[in-house]
């Protein structure tokens, strides 16, 4: 499948790409004070493990990912999960100046319908060390690039049925979750385990089956006190509001999700899923960083062997 690219502008942050065939051109340009190098290609794999329906809405999963020792393991087990879900399209966006061979090969062998993008978060915004400073939202630029790709690829058109879900590469997803996601008219919501210092965080649902608040301890007064894994958005809604993106700068910890959702929907419009938000179908698991003490300074193992 030949690659393609679009030249586009997004407010003060600019994504610049180059038109290319399978020879992946890289265009480097200094715009708005950032240097962005980016290429992307779309792959539509024709072999599928599950029968595909033309009527079932497609679930577009957006996963930002970055190179680290556990990356291949995380993506491998995500693939194992996604292979069970019919009509799924995986948009994997690397935090990298260009797409890496590890991810390209993994996607090729996966058998999934996918789109492989990359954009590098400027160094000054990258989280440093083991601390998870929530003032530096990881994955923001990558998620925004995926939204941009969706808007460039699909016309606002009632024939295109789809739902968008932001799935980080270290969470755990049940299969039931995806069928809940599929039936989203605007924005649907459900509980997420292990976030906000609780067993789970959840929307508050009133007797009329409407969301009226948030069952969280950490800042329940946020416009949308919900984790990235706790909501999905109808594709048409995303296409109809082309200015809606995650805010990149000046976002307080925990307000990332609100920065996008408030552009799209009000509390009243939210659709509670997972049995009126009483079941946990997704877990915010985090994988320990492996301690590679025995590698030493020079590296003990063969670096050509990919992990």
């Amino acid at each position, binding site marked *: 499948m030949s690659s393609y690219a679009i030249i586009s502008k997004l407010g003060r942050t600019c994504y610049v790409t180059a038109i290319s065939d399978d020879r992946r051109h890289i265009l480097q340009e200094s715009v708005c004070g950032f240097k962005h190098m980016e290429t992307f290609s779309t792959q539509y794999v024709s072999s599928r493990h599950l029968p595909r329906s033309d009527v079932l809405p497609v679930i577009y999963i957006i996963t930002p990912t970055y190179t680290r020792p556990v990356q291949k393991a995380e993506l491998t087990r995500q693939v*194992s999960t996604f292979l069970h879900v019919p009509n799924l399209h995986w948009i994997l966006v690397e935090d990298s100046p260009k797409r890496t061979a590890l991810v390209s090969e993994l996607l090729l062998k996966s058998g999934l319908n996918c789109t492989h993008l990359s954009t590098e978060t400027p160094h000054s915004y990258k989280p440093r060390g083991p601390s998870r400073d929530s003032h530096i939202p990881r994955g923001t630029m990558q998620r925004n690039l995926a939204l941009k790709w969706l808007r460039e690829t699909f016309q606002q058109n009632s024939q295109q049925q789809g739902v968008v879900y932001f799935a980080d590469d270290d969470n755990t997803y049940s299969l039931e979750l995806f069928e809940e996601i599929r039936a989203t008219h605007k924005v649907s919501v459900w509980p997420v385990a292990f976030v906000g210092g609780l067993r789970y965080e959840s929307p508050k649902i009133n007797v009329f089956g409407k969301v009226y608040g948030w069952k969280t301890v950490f800042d329940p007064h946020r416009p949308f006190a919900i984790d990235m894994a706790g909501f999905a958005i109808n594709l048409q809604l995303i296409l109809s509001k082309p200015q809606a993106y995650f805010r990149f700068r000046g976002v307080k910890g925990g307000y990332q999700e609100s920065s996008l959702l408030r552009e799209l929907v009000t509390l009243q419009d939210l659709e509670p899923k997972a049995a009126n938000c009483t079941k946990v179908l997704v*877990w915010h698991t985090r*994988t320990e960083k492996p301690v590679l003490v025995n590698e030493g300074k020079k590296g003990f193992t063969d670096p050509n062997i990919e992990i």
Partner: protein
Amino acid sequence: MRMKLKLKTVFLLYFVVSLLGLFYALMQLGQHCDCTDQLLLKDRTVSQLRRELQKLQEAFRKPSESEKLSKNPSLPTIYVVTPTYARLVQKAELTRLSLTLLHVPRLHWIVVEDSPQPTPLVRDLLAVSGLAYTHLHVPTPKDMKLQEKDPTWLKPRGVEQRNEAMRWLREMAAAAAVEQAVVYFADDDNTYSLKVFEEMRFTQRVSVWPVGLVGGMRYEGPVVENGKVVRFHTGWRPSRPFPIDMAGFAVSLRLVVAHPGARFDRSAQIGFLESSLLQGLVTMKELEPKADMCTKILVWHTRTEKPKIKREEIMQKQGMGSDLNVEV
């Protein structure tokens, strides 16, 4: 007078208009309305959905490749032994492991709980998993159990549970002819590619391969020369008989049955648990190297962080903890 007359007129007019309206509505009752457009759209949608349903039904009736292989009796069964214990991330771990195993044909999952009795969480998860499974349970003796603040390497985990699984396998093999099958000890927090299962399936005695992210290194694994394992690449105590992780080997069922005394030794030193089983079964020369002569990483020793639920603990002390009926 004029005012009164006006009011009378208004009322009369109101009455007449209402009466006319009523007559009109009555006339419309039972009349056919012109809804042909809506009917056409509905018909189209219904026939589209019918076609879709038919297509999907046909497709699901055709067995997938994996299912065809599952029915093939000449394909050796893989018995995956997973010890597990109750903690916050247990359901998540078992869920994602089950979704991996579901892709592997002729696989039988033996889940052994560290518990005096089977728990509803594991029972229900297995029941809906779609996998062939056996649900066992055996508690680790109290003095052998890791306490909350103990480092994870202090006491070996899963020993009783893996031994219990082997006991069940031997019992099952005694009841029926021992088929060609292989046993793999798969912890619930590791990550497995689908390929590792195909590598181990035709194990004759004990097969081995490298494991990623273990032993303080990018990977640990056997070193192969001329198709034979000559030593092990490990950063820690390479003099162990089998310096290999639990996830890095599989044992043929016949070998397990032929050595009824072979088990994991709970009193083994740290890092010697795998050796305590393998040294009774096989020598290094007899090991069958897999994964492209042990040059590919097909399994990773990932570990999941313990979730920080400090706020939950505070809330529970105040009597305002989350609903414990909601299973996580």
